[in-house]
């Protein structure tokens, strides 16, 4: 008999990972946020409002789609896609921003800030801020501003101020640094909506809880469609919010294998990647202890991935814990393999995935043939590829 999974502990620790590693100015607001979150988590009015928003604004439940042609083609397990790409704004990110924005409103905050990599979280934040009439500032690395210009335009349309961050590597980690600096300066009126399961406690647990709707739905849908639990779950991992959202309701189901797919960039062996669980070491960054891409001196190493959303040197602390305990398996997919996943899904099923999700598709292409046709894989299709059209066209030498 196994104990029920209850992580994290009261102070936000997943074993040695997680915690609250922040400067003193941020301790009071984090404790305030944690108290509010614990309160509203058990408040039926809050839950009812959240459920209503998820149904009528986000468009939940998202379908669990049986990719029959692709399954046949790969000649192994039956592949089911959890269609988070069909959510309002085009990715799973909105599940979390709707929840945190309701919390911000309840706490009386008038100003929202966020960091973003691919821009999906930025768009999802700008969207809920527009709806609630809240001021919104989104920090985005200057490199990402250039490669995801479509999402920058969407955020601006929605009334957000997009700040291009020019420091460091000019990607997601630097956007997070800058958002933390903003928060420290404006703690009285500002709510920081973190987009992934990282940051100081309670963010990793809170974002997981808002994203766990993915796994809860998938479990019920899989039981209805196949009469049983899936054999494996596959999801891409940058910070890891879509993966934990899918995995979490299955953690106690020991028969379900969990596969988190990191970005191997040019290849793990080249050092140009974003795969801390596969090739990093434990350390402390952005408020929590987790696996990081850092050198022998503890300096953070620049990362690389074709997908801006996975281009981050850390990973959520719960993934670090699930790795160490062996409950989840973490694998990696290169830029080129991810492109293979992108084209395969597009042409086999008529669904264009985001480059982030394409990493999960590429791993599914490796995993499915190793399983029997009566077995089931659920893959999280965490976002749609519209935002990546310019990147893809450029790769193909086409000027849009």
């Amino acid at each position, binding site marked *: 008999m196994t104990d029920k999974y209850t992580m994290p502990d009261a102070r936000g620790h997943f074993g040695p990972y997680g915690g609250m590693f922040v*400067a003193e100015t941020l301790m*009071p*607001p984090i404790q305030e946020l944690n108290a509010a979150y614990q309160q509203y988590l058990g408040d039926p009015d809050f839950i009812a409002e959240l459920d209503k928003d998820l149904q009528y604004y986000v468009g939940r439940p998202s379908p669990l789609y049986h990719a029959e042609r692709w399954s046949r083609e790969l000649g192994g397990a039956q592949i089911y896609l959890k269609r988070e790409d069909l959510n309002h704004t085009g990715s799973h990110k909105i599940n979390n921003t709707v929840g945190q924005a309701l919390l911000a409103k309840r706490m009386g905050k008038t100003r929202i800030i966020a960091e973003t990599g691919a821009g999906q979280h930025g768009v999802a934040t700008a969207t809920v801020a527009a709806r609630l009439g809240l001021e919104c500032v989104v920090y985005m690395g200057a490199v990402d501003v250039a490669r995801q210009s479509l999402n920058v335009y969407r955020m601006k349309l929605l009334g957000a101020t997009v700040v291009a961050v020019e420091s460091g590597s000019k990607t997601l980690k630097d956007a997070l640094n800058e958002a933390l600096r903003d928060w420290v300066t404006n*703690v009285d009126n500002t709510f920081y909506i973190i987009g992934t399961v990282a940051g100081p406690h309670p963010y990793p647990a809170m974002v997981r809880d808002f994203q766990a709707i993915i796994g809860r739905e998938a479990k019920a849908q899989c039981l209805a469609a196949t009469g049983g639990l899936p054999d494996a779950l596959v999801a891409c991992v940058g910070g890891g919010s879509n993966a934990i959202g899918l995995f979490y309701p299955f953690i106690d189901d020991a028969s379900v294998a969990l596969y988190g797919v990191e970005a191997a960039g040019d290849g793990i062996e080249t050092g140009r990647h974003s795969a801390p669980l596969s090739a990093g070491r434990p*350390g402390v960054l952005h408020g929590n202890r987790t696996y990081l891409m850092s050198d022998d001196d*503890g300096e953070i190493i620049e990362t690389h991935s074709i997908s801006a959303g996975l281009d981050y040197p850390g990973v959520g602390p719960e993934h670090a814990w699930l790795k160490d305990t062996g409950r989840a398996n973490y694998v990696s997919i290169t830029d080129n393999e991810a492109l293979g996943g992108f084209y395969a899904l597009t042409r086999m099923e008529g669904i264009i995935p985001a480059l982030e999700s394409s990493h999960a598709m590429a791993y599914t292409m490796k995993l499915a043939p190793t399983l029997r046709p009566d077995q089931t894989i659920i893959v999280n299709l965490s976002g749609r590829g519209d935002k990546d059209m310019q990147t893809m066209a450029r790769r193909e030498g086409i000027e849009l």
Partner: protein
Amino acid sequence: MSRLAATFEALAQTGRKALIPFITAGDPYPEFTVPMMHAMVEAGVDVIELGIPFSDPMADGPVIQRASERALAHKMSLRRTLAMAMEFRRSNRHTPIVLMGYLNPIEAMGYEAFANAAQRAEVDGILTVDLPPEEGEECAALLKARDIDPIFLLAPNSSSERIQKMDAVGSGYLYYVSLKGVTGAGHLNIADVKTKLEQLRANTRLPVAIGFGVKDADTAKTIAALGDGVVVGSALISKIEANLDSPEQAKKEIIELLAAMRHAMDNNGA
């Protein structure tokens, strides 16, 4: 008695306040730092805060972040920062050195290895920006066992309960961050600092050094009247940044600013 405690006690006996400069180790290049430390002592500083360069200094403003970037471009590291402290100590036995930085380089070295190395370098205090007492007990105990003071930050929004917690875990002095914001921000409010200091005094007997936003001699003088020490960082590093093609000029301007602060603080008339 630790070097820090002795320093604050001696100052208190003469009614003076500590002048505490912050510079980043290895900025603008490694050979600049130790001679700069000695020159600052000659200009009348009491304690030196030496910044450990870090790639992602989340609580710092752009000036100190760029200082880290310049130092890292010269392959600076925690190990080399400790080596600089050791070199300084060879010819200065009395001025306390506090290393200030972020946790990850210390995690990478390992807490115990770091505490041993800091002891060998005769470092007097460690201030880790992103290590609050909730997470810092193990590290603080290792330091204290080696007579090194773990120094904690306090902020305008710190409650009395938290001040008491820092008082219990910390030693040497407490560093009061005088404003909500990053280092080098420009909106220090003297009346707010004064009110907060009353709450601090009611909850700790440790000396209180005040920093963030101290730019000139006048501010140093005003702040000195409220606390036990004044920390100045970004204002000094701005001099380095403004004179990257002439480090000697940067050094001269830093010494002039510190001397002016020393003079203003010692002639308070209050």
